[in-house]
């Protein structure tokens, strides 16, 4: 090593032992790696240190004699000597704890944190044993709700700044703040302005005392009677790692697990509280069959017999399967094998016209979240608002942009949750994002900047200049009112940027696992097509489909035409989720037989299902989950399913057996073994590798046999002067059946409003909030209208699946864009 080379490690002496610390590493982290725990309250490894609590004071000698220094604020330096167990350190630790307990109430038996409380634990370990404080403690009104789900008990707060720092630096929702000063310092919200954050549950998890408690867990159990297992959050495709905790065979809490490549310990409130739907009283505990207008409970053999007789009577081409994103990878594979191998239909689609071309997602070079968040890199968002759809991804992207100097360029029809931190927000007219992408790429490659899709040449050229370093393009459906082909074309344009990689932002649960399992027309499990991959399945499967089947829009159109006899709803609700409610309703009216697998009765099931098979939920069955990067992580069973509900793969096996074919599965491990054997991309998926990657998951890379599709060449029809172009985008809380059944999320769906640019709003000539008639070629809605400068002129923004006003009423799945006329009602 020469002198000019920078030292890669620093020698730090920790309690007499020499330890090699990394340059820039904080002392508290180095000590932890060396096996010496320094007590702390305010320090959190995923946030900047503030040195608020002084609990981590240790004696540090840098050559000038030992002095007390906060280990969380002190970067290691070469030759530093640290003593964590000297009488001086012990005395200050006891003193700090005695000081913190001056105002902290000793109501541990009542407090939810009791038993898992850092203050309790560290007082036992480092505390003085007795307090000299005999005076009255500070009093505040006991818990005050700071939003619908989180309570704040200011008496217990030790002012560590964790929740307020999280709200400010991580979530970007600075709605809680220290108020007042001195002895009266308290965390609080502004009067009448609740902590309306999608990420508020994280503050409860990181609170080192019981000051913040969450309504769903409040007083439900104590830490010592919780059983815990590692699993993966199932409400979106980020695959955030969670600890599922249950008591008396009931899931009562989810906590985020710090997985370095994925969610860093954070969860959105939807991921955190979604388990409530699984505990719903309306859960299916037994199969149902239709008798007249009613669905009545029945036994499994009756229900399965009925389902099997429907399936065996139908011509394979007249059977279709919609859905599957709710299922685990293993269940998806079992269903793919049943549908494509045993029944022999290729009319299988896990997306409800709300996703992207599977071959685009699987064929493009993929990025990981870490690669997307490369410091100093460029992120191009050509997809949905991550804050509304994929909360954990939003937090990672926001961190990259705010703290790691990544530049975000948005190509979205309206402002998103990331717009405040974006370097450039370009809002193309609906349906024309591909034109904007072409113009941007041309400008970035040195060509002249020209205006496109309603975005000026200046904006495009300044955004093009910002494209530098590693380039990650996030693709997805920013608006469900325009065709997926628009995104396909835009993605193919952006693929011309040198070194660009793609991160798919399809939201729906395990949708990426479904695509990998072949639950899409023309695909087989393991990222291959029915043409290229058929040979590999010759032994394991009885047959593979010969020709490409229909996608969901095609299936529903065929069903409405009377060309489908049996429709299988694999945890899907076409009425509410398909981008085209009139078509979905017509299809369900017409199709003679519907078999559904689900946990709750959704609107489609209530309307059309003949047989409903009760499925188990995410915490009730074992399996694996594939996130948007292609990362496979385990979901473990924590509780038993209600009643006689079964895992989806068991139902597939049972149906296959009754159809005269043994799928050959007796456990999820046996399914995984078959996946690893037949799939080219899953060859590394074995039990040992999975067990070793318990926290971070196994990344499954490569495109297999999938080729990137060609440019579709969409050209939206001309826009007449009287109508507005609809943008329908998802929000975190909507009227989905799971959210309807979780008490803490039910009330959070925002009331529906049609948002227009103030210019367009003024043309209608009504007051803010007036109900207007919004009419498209296929449907009509009555919704209140309000102006929003974030909406471009000529667009109209409507939330997807809002309670009472489903936006898909207006959408025709076969048209490129949706034009609506907005008139006084």
């Amino acid at each position: 090593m020469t002198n000019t080379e920078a030292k890669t490690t620093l020698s730090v002496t920790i309690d007499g032992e020499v330890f090699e610390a990394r340059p820039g590493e904080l002392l508290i982290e180095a000590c932890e790696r060396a096996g010496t725990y320094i007590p702390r309250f305010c320090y959190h490894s995923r946030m900047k240190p503030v040195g608020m609590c002084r609990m981590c004071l240790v004696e540090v000698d840098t050559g000038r004699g030992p002095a007390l220094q906060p280990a969380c604020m002190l970067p290691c330096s070469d030759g530093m000597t640290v003593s964590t167990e000297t009488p001086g350190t012990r005395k200050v630790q006891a003193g700090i704890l005695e000081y913190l307990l001056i105002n902290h109430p000793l109501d541990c038996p009542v407090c939810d944190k009791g038993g898992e409380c850092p203050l309790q634990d560290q007082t036992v370990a480092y505390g003085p044993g007795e307090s000299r404080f005999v005076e009255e403690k500070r009093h505040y009104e006991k818990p005050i709700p700071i939003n619908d789900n989180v309570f704040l008990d200011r008496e217990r707060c030790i002012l560590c700044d964790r929740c307020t720092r999280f709200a400010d630096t991580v979530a970007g929702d600075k709605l809680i703040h220290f108020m007042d000063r001195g002895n009266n310092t308290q965390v609080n919200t502004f009067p009448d302005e609740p902590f309306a954050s999608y990420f508020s549950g994280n503050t409860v998890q990181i609170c080192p005392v019981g000051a913040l408690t969450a309504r769903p867990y409040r007083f439900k159990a104590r830490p010592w009677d919780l059983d815990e297992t590692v699993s993966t959050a199932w409400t979106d495709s980020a695959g955030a790692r969670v600890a599922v905790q249950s008591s008396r065979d009931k899931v009562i809490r989810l906590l985020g697990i710090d997985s370095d490549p994925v969610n860093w310990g954070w969860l959105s409130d939807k991921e955190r509280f979604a388990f409530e739907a699984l505990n719903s009283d309306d859960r299916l505990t037994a199969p149902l069959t239709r008798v007249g207008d009613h669905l009545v409970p029945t036994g499994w053999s009756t229900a399965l017999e009925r389902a099997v007789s429907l399936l065996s009577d139908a011509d394979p081409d007249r059977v279709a399967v919609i859905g599957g994103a709710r299922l685990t990878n293993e269940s998806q594979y079992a269903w793919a094998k049943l549908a494509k191998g045993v029944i022999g239909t290729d009319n299988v689609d896990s997306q409800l016209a709300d996703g992207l071309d599977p071959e685009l997602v699987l064929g493009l070079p993929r990025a990981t979240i870490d690669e997307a968040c490369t410091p100093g890199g460029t992120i191009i968002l050509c997809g949905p608002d991550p804050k509304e759809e994929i909360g954990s991804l939003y937090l990672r992207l926001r961190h990259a942009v705010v703290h790691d100097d990544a530049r975000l360029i948005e190509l979205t029809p309206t402002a998103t949750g990331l717009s405040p931190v974006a370097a450039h927000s370009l809002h193309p007219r609906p349906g024309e994002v591909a034109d904007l992408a072409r113009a941007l790429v041309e400008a970035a490659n040195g060509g002249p900047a020209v205006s496109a899709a309603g975005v000026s040449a200046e904006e495009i050229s300044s955004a093009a200049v910002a494209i530098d370093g590693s380039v990650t393009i996030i693709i997805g459906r920013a608006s469900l009112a325009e065709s997926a082909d628009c995104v396909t074309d835009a993605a193919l344009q952006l693929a011309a940027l040198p070194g660009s990689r793609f991160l798919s932002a399809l939201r729906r649960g395990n949708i990426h696992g479904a695509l990998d399992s072949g639950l899409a027309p023309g695909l087989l499990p393991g990222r291959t097509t029915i043409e290229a991959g058929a040979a590999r399945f010759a032994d394991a499967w009885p047959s593979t489909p010969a020709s490409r089947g229909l996608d969901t829009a095609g299936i529903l159109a065929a069903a409405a035409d009377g060309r489908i006899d049996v429709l299988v709803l694999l945890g899907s609700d076409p009425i509410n989720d398909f981008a085209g409610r009139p078509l979905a309703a017509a299809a369900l009216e017409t199709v003679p037989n519907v078999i559904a697998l689900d946990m709750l009765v959704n609107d489609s099931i209530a309307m059309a299902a003949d047989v409903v098979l009760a499925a188990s939920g995410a915490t009730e069955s074992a399996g694996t989950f594939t996130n948007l990067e292609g990362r496979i992580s385990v979901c473990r069973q924590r509780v038993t399913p209600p009643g006689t509900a079964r895992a989806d793969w068991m139902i597939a096996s049972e149906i296959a057996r009754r159809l005269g074919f043994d799928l050959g599965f007796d456990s999820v491990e046996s399914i995984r073994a078959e996946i690893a054997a037949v799939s080219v991309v899953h060859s590394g998926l074995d039990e040992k590798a999975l067990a070793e990657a318990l926290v971070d998951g196994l990344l499954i890379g490569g495109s297999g046999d999938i080729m990137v599709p060609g440019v579709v060449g969409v050209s939206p029809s001309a826009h007449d002067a009287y109508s507005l172009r609809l943008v329908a985008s998802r929000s975190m809380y909507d009227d989905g059946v799971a959210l309807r059944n979780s008490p803490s999320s039910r009330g959070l769906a925002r009331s529906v409003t049609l948002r227009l640019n103030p210019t367009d709003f003024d043309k209608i000539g009504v007051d803010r909030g007036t109900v207007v008639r919004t009419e498209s070629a296929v449907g009509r809605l009555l919704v209140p209208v309000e102006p929003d400068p974030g909406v471009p002129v000529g667009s109209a923004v409507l939330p997807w699946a809002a309670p009472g006003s489903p936006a898909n009423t207006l959408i025709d799945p076969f048209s490129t864009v949706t034009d609506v006329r907005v008139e006084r009602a």
Partner: protein
Amino acid sequence: MSRFSLDNESIAREIISRYPRPKSALIPLLHLAQEQDGWVTIDAMRHIAELTGTTPAEVMGTGSFYEMFKFHPVGRYVINICSNITCQLMGAESLLEHAEAKLGVKVGGTTADGLFTLEDVECIAACTEAPALQVNYRYRLRVTAEDFDQLVDDIRSGTARDIPEHGTLSLVRQSIPADRGAGIVPPEQAREVSVWMARNDAAEQN
């Protein structure tokens, strides 16, 4: 009595323009709000948040740190009687009692006519002239009960001309010429030394 008036809003915008980051203008804007209404209203904080691109919680969190910002209505004249040791020894307690009797309110209260608010405060740095008090932060020193009565009568009759109404601060309205401004470029990004700093450097070298 709420958001900034149009005049004050334009002053607020001018104040914001003096800083590299709008958030830095929070304190002067809170002063401006207090000058307008005598106290900082909820709506004023919302307005400040809109103008500076912060959240109302941040505005309130910043402002509530400071005793001199009032988040509840106070009288037009806020009387602060020092209650620390020197003043206490020199009779501040009896002065406070006398003040309570004279004004007919307890400490922290406001007279029914909305003219006076009586407060006891920590040391106001006038120990040599104890007992001391402030009226809208203007000192009165070595105050006796008679002095206090005289003061109240003077204010009521409008003869105490050196005491402005509560909230008035002249510095908020100061007009800073362009060459005296600190510049609106964040310090870490500043490539050129601002005019006034260059002038100071030159003066030092001479």
